[in-house]
């Protein structure tokens, strides 16, 4: 029987797991706050320290991490998260610095920020970075703010439309709207790339720019990239690079050299910081030099050997309380220094080799809609020979039974049964071959015993969940849960 308690269900009045020193000044009484005090009962659990430790240890066992097994989640770059990154955070004093401390007392911390900024500039071919954005989507929003501000600074308030291919990540159109701009969606051609004629047809003096990820979400490199950036620039727009797929380009191409003016980088993808079950990430934004002045405040600068904090007048403004997810930045710099230029140069090549190898090895069993060279990830459109119409969802769930994480499914939206596989550069040939064998086995099962797939997974802590019930009942807290259980009785 697997562990199934909530922390609240371990609670017993009188237990405690905290130890604080004896009060030094008991003569001061918080009850003096009178009417400002809370009357509402506070329902937090009361447990012992071991109760607490066991609880979280036990629920952790129901999770799958990169160190559990192969994690080919497309567009997420689930590479190995090196242990030294974590050690540097735990064994140094950076985590104990208050962000308001005088700059003279945080010179080491500012140097980390400055050095990472510089390294990202070199890797991406852009003049300057702000590390303040907290995540990829946050970086997109801040990048678009820079784009909007640039046009406004030229007295142009009409340019508010942003061109986004239909294959783009959902955050691209969402960020555009949050930034008070308008989405112009364009289609892809039969090779999965930006259709140049569609692009030309939407270019006009209301276009602020274009957002593009390259390789795109199909894992395909946009061959016409130089022409695309030229067309958009000639029409007065700026080019935004969505850095979600940057891993493919390491050592091969730089976004700045392809003509991109603004980009964000997901440190939690390309630069190996752990995903943490959905954050914290960090989404640094880089720009060409003509846009530097618009980057968010605060900025970190260097004069001779002294680092200082600057606030600029022409900035888009402040978009975070301080310097972004600082400890994530510290991990990313550790990674960059550990690899050095020699190894950073290899990443795109190995990641791309792995994805193409998987693509070639599986194309007899899974339908490959675009049979072309791919970059760091490959996209299939469901099972190839599929007499029982087994869905991609069932294939993904069956993979879990074999001890592997599922690829990204039903994205990109261009294909109805999309399976997006990103192996990354840190997986061995043995692991990749095991994955290929399992996928082939599943394809065989789909023909011989489709029910097995439809019922999968069977070997996981829980089986498939009732998502309609969750959305309908809206039980979002222990209080809701108790209300629900009581209403049933």
């Amino acid at each position, binding site marked *: 029987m697997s562990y199934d308690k909530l*922390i*609240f269900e371990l609670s017993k009045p009188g237990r405690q797991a905290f130890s604080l*020193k004896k*009060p*030094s000044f008991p003569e001061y009484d918080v009850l003096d706050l009178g009417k400002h*005090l809370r009357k509402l009962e506070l329902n*937090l659990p*009361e*447990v012992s320290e071991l109760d607490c430790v066991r*609880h979280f240890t036990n*629920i952790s066992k*129901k999770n799958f991490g*990169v*160190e*559990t097994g192969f994690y080919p989640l497309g567009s997420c770059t*689930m590479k*190995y998260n090196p242990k030294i990154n974590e050690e540097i955070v*735990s064994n*140094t*004093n*950076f985590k104990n610095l*208050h962000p*308001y*401390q*005088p700059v*003279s*007392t945080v010179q080491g911390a500012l140097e980390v920020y400055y050095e990472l900024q510089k390294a990202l500039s*070199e*890797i991406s071919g852009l003049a300057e970075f702000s590390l303040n954005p907290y*995540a990829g989507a946050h970086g*997109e929003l801040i990048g678009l703010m820079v784009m909007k501000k640039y046009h406004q600074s030229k007295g142009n308030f009409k340019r508010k439309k942003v061109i986004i291919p239909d294959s783009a990540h959902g955050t691209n159109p*969402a960020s555009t709207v*949050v930034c008070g701009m308008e*989405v112009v969606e364009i289609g892809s051609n039969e090779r999965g790339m930006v259709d140049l004629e569609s692009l030309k047809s939407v270019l006009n003096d209301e276009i602020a720019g274009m957002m593009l990820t390259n390789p795109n979400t199909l894992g395909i490199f946009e061959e016409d990239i130089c022409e695309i950036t030229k067309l958009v620039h000639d029409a007065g727009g700026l080019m935004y690079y969505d850095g979600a797929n940057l891993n493919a380009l390491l*050592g091969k*191409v730089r976004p700045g*050299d392809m003509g991109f003016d603004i980009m964000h980088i997901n440190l939690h993808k390309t630069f190996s910081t752990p995903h*943490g*079950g*959905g*954050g*914290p990430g960090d989404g640094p934004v880089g720009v060409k030099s003509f846009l530097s002045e618009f980057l968010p405040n605060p900025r970190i600068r260097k004069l001779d050997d002294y680092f200082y904090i600057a606030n600029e007048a022409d900035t888009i*403004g402040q978009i975070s309380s*301080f310097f972004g997810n600082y400890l994530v930045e510290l991990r990313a710099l550790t990674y960059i*220094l550990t690899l050095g230029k*020699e*190894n950073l140069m290899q990443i795109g090549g*190995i990641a791309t*080799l792995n994805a193409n190898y998987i693509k070639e090895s599986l194309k007899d069993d899974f339908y490959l809609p675009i049979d072309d060279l791919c970059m760091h990830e490959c996209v299939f459109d469901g099972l190839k020979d599929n007499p029982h119409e087994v869905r991609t969802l069932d294939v993904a769930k069956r993979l879990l039974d074999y001890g592997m994480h599922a690829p990204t499914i039903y994205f990109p939206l261009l294909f109805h049964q999309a399976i997006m596989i990103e192996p990354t550069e840190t*997986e*061995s*040939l043995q692991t990749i071959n095991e994955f290929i064998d399992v996928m082939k086995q599943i394809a065989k099962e789909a023909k011989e015993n489709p029910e097995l797939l439809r019922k999968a997974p069977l070997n996981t802590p*829980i089986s498939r969940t009732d998502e309609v*019930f*969750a*959305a309908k009942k809206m*039980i*979002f*807290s*222990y209080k809701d849960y108790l209300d629900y259980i009581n209403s049933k009785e």
Partner: protein
Amino acid sequence: MFKYFPHTKADVDQMLKTLNISSIDELFSQISKKVLLKNEYDLKSEMSEMEVRDYFKSLEKNNQELVIFSGLGVYDHYQPSVINALTSRQEFLTSYTPYQPEISQGTLQYIFEYQSMIQALTGLDVSNASMYDGSTSAAEACFMACNASRRKKILISETLNPNTIEVIKTYLKFKEYDFEMVANKDGVFDVEDFKNKMSKEYAGVIVQNPNFFGFIEDYEGVADFAHEFKGLLIQNSDISTLSLLKSPAENKADIACGDCQSLGLPVAFGGPYLGYLATIKKLVRKLPGRICGYTTDTSGKRSFVLTLQAREQHIRRSKANSNICSNQSLLALYVTIYMSLMGKKGLVEVNNQSYQNSHYLYERLIKTGKFFDNFNQPFIKEFTLETSISHDLISEALLKSNIFGGFSLNQISDRYENLINFCVTEKRTKTEIDKLINVLEGLS
């Protein structure tokens, strides 16, 4: 090959053979020679693990770890050892967003527990799975209010943390929404000014308690007044203090937001922290970000899933409530473990001791005759005084004794000339506090 790249030369050769090519470069043949990199990155060469350690050890020497008597949104509270031990488990640390619930119940369950604890502290109906930080959760709360009321203007209390105000302003400016400030009177939210300004034009008002100065505000009648105009009350709070102070629910707030840094997170030079965002049931579909809900699996076993995803960007794209994608999941785990350890009594005790420590310091400073309280407002762990001693002198003298804070507020705005802010948490000892007093007594 390098330690993170497992392929041997033979592996690579075998893979190339399968692909029927002779080099990895051929995989990039579709890329124009014009843009292909010709040179290595201009970066340092690879470092051994020992060299990496040495590098950061040498950098940290340029930092000075100080005894912190400053807050302003970032609080130096005690962190139990259990937190690091548990959050560093790879099952939590290295997993992705829980899209496959069958193998993500660990993450989903602690998010459910986190939401339950935020629900308990705020008293509101529903919390999401967390936001980036307090300032962005406040900005998203303002958008929520605008969205719910279909209005494009909002009132902002001047007593909010200036960082929060700046972030809200940036978000509003680009969305082409507008705002008006509500004045502070004697260091707290001026209810009269709010009543004069509130109208059907505004989506509501955002206030902060305890406010930027550390003072406790009174929102008697504020929510009712806002509701008369179909506007909303948004309460921003350092969440730890809600264990003692009137909850957003008791203030009839419609949305609660703020930072959770004070619940077990290190000060970390500004991040990562996490923001919380909670609201009433009526507004649940306006909430941005992830929400975790209870359900069952096919065998009837209790399970948790991400739900109401039709609000989110990956489904709704340009029509989503927000562009937010990730939450700060691992930090939500920090908070959940912290609150499990501290429980009902511990969290109250933390605030109780912070209250006692800060009031001791307050009285001693007033007694020196060099610090004055022009506001006379109640506070819990943080307070603001006026002094005519040069702030540079104070800062310098304290630094010599390895102390950071009081913080001079005119570093933040000219409007706060001569004001100095102190924060004393439960972590500070009598010896540390007396040392601070000692240094300040010696100045003139």
